[in-house]
């Protein structure tokens, strides 16, 4: 059983060092039951504060938080059908792993045999069947992360909150955990609300993403929509490399005040294959960066205007691009995206 989570006009304001900080300002959000929803944004953007308000660790100064339509805004954490996987796992160091996982059942009065059995089952689900009797300091980071997950699931919550749980893991482990979390969510069918500042993580795991910037929610969309049709400049630049053009630069290419096109959508044509009709833009290569599967070129258009980033795939290229080379840039009209609002 899983629930929907809604934030209605939620704000969180507090005073720190004599200044008023608007950690979260007027956020409206609807997470559907059974969804894998990610809160994405840079540090200080308010995404973690939002998560903490859903969990009950911080109380909103304004607005309401609803779970399945019930107003839980002022409820403490233990009175919400929500469980959390913390960024640094927060395992109880003085208890064994088994006791850690069984904790949620212990405080609800479940008898020892039942809860230990369930805890052991969960440890098997996260592929750590042998560690029950050890203590948290004896486990590696990756193992602790799975224990934290198991512990959070024992109460069968309707919503699981994950606060940047993969941040402390190295790349390989992180990628592995990403796919495991995704399949776990599908299997359990409960609502996952995931916080991260890593856009790749967000794009690969989520059903929908909410992008935060300075306490405000700038856009909520599926990964594809977010990537291809960002509604603000911030979102465009945060979610991936982007060419964002404003004002006169934008009008050069379309009837709009603000435009975006992704570098990988900009086709690079070189002298050698000059058989097609004239390119949209001709320019000189100013910088070349090698990214393994492609080069990223910074091209200065010959007729003036802002420089454009373009990706040239390695496959199909005769030779590496050089600085000073003249190239032609082209694109499909549909890949040029008009940004409706520079700011929300």
């Amino acid at each position: 059983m899983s629930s929907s989570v809604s934030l209605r006009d939620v704000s969180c304001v507090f005073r720190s060092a004599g200044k008023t900080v608007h950690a979260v300002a007027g956020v409206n959000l609807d997470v559907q039951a059974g969804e894998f929803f990610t809160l994405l944004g840079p540090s200080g953007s308010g995404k973690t504060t939002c998560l903490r308000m859903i969990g009950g660790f911080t109380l909103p100064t304004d607005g309401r938080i609803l779970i399945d339509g019930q107003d839980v805004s002022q409820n403490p954490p233990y009175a919400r059908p929500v469980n959390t996987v913390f960024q640094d796992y927060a395992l109880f160091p003085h208890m064994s792993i088994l006791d850690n996982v069984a904790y949620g059942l212990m405080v609800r009065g479940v008898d020892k045999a039942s809860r230990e059995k369930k805890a052991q089952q969960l440890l098997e689900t996260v592929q750590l069947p042998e560690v029950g009797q050890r203590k948290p300091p004896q486990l590696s980071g990756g193992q602790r992360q799975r224990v934290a997950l198991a512990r959070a699931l024992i109460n069968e919550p309707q919503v699981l909150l994950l606060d940047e749980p993969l941040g402390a893991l190295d790349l390989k482990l992180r990628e592995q955990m990403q796919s495991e979390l995704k399949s776990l969510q599908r299997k359990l069918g409960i609502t996952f609300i995931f916080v991260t500042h890593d856009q790749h993580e967000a794009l690969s795991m989520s059903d929908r993403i909410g992008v935060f910037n300075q306490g405000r929610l700038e856009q909520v969309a599926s990964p594809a929509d977010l990537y291809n049709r960002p509604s603000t400049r911030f979102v465009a630049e945060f979610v991936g490399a982007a060419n964002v053009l404003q004002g006169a630069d934008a009008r050069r290419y379309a009837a709009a005040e603000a435009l975006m096109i992704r570098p990988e959508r900009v086709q690079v044509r070189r002298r050698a294959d000059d058989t097609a009709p004239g390119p949209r833009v001709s320019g000189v290569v100013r910088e070349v960066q090698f990214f393994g599967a492609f080069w990223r070129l910074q091209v200065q258009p010959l007729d003036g205007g802002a420089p454009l980033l373009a990706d040239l795939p390695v496959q199909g290229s005769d030779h590496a691009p050089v600085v000073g080379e003249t190239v032609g840039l082209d694109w499909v009209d549909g890949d040029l995206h008009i940004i409706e609002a520079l700011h929300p």
Partner: protein
Amino acid sequence: MTASSPTSAAARNGLLDRLSTLLYTRRGLLLGVLLAPPLLWFGIIYLGSLLSLLANSFFRLDDFTGQVVREVGFGNFVEIFSPTNLDVALRSTLMAVAVTLSCALLGFPMAYYMARYARGTQKALLYVAVMLPLWSSYLVRLYAWKLLLAKEGAISWVLQALHLQWLLDAVLALPVVGGSSLSFSPLGTYLVFVYMWLPFMILPIMAAIERIPGSYLEASADLGASPAQTLRQVIIPLAMPGVAAGSIFTFSLTLGDYIIPQVIGNSTLYIGQVVYRQQGVAGNLPFAAAFSLVPIVIIGVYLWLAKRKGAFDAL
């Protein structure tokens, strides 16, 4: 609480749950509940006592009835400035200063060694060696010195064995600090004070020196300073807050003490003794109260000076 539905984290209504929720949503209330007992205790019992002390210092003792007369007057304060009392205050302050300086000089080398050279077991051993006297009984340590300083005691015996008895006699014949024997002279009092408070000086200095980043010392050596110069120019100035912190203890403890001068010393009086006698034997609580403000003021001034040297950060 039933175990049958772990999925229902719905309304929990036990009394503890409701109380817990109340404290959770009203953090101010939680703070109040936590702070109320200690604050009430300290406010009423301790601050109240200090206030009543202050009040008493304005009252006076009726010579005939021996009762405390509760009228505001400044007689006690005038009395404080009488020659004998000023003498007492001066003597106590000088002793406190002498003890503080000696403890700093004696304690610094040991603190320096402990901070910079001692490691592992040796360091733990030295740390315990300083901690134990600090925490063990004041009176027992005092008693030990009474034994040591007695005419027939260990120090005398050692000096006799070394044929240095004449030295002791010469020292005891000195005007201000001498006396009939070590245990009946200000010199003896001074020795015992230094012994008592030495650990209080060593630990803060050690902590302060430990906090000096190794890179400072390396930089000093790199720039050409000899170890002695590094000690003088870098270590000692940076260790000063620790010295100041330790000095707060030695100064204030010496200033208020009345037992050591009574057990080991001649009949000259110190502040603590005056206060004690006035409130005890003489029954003159008002004057004792007034006189006890003297060390408070002196210590207040000293604390202000120490704070400027950074002592509070070193505590």
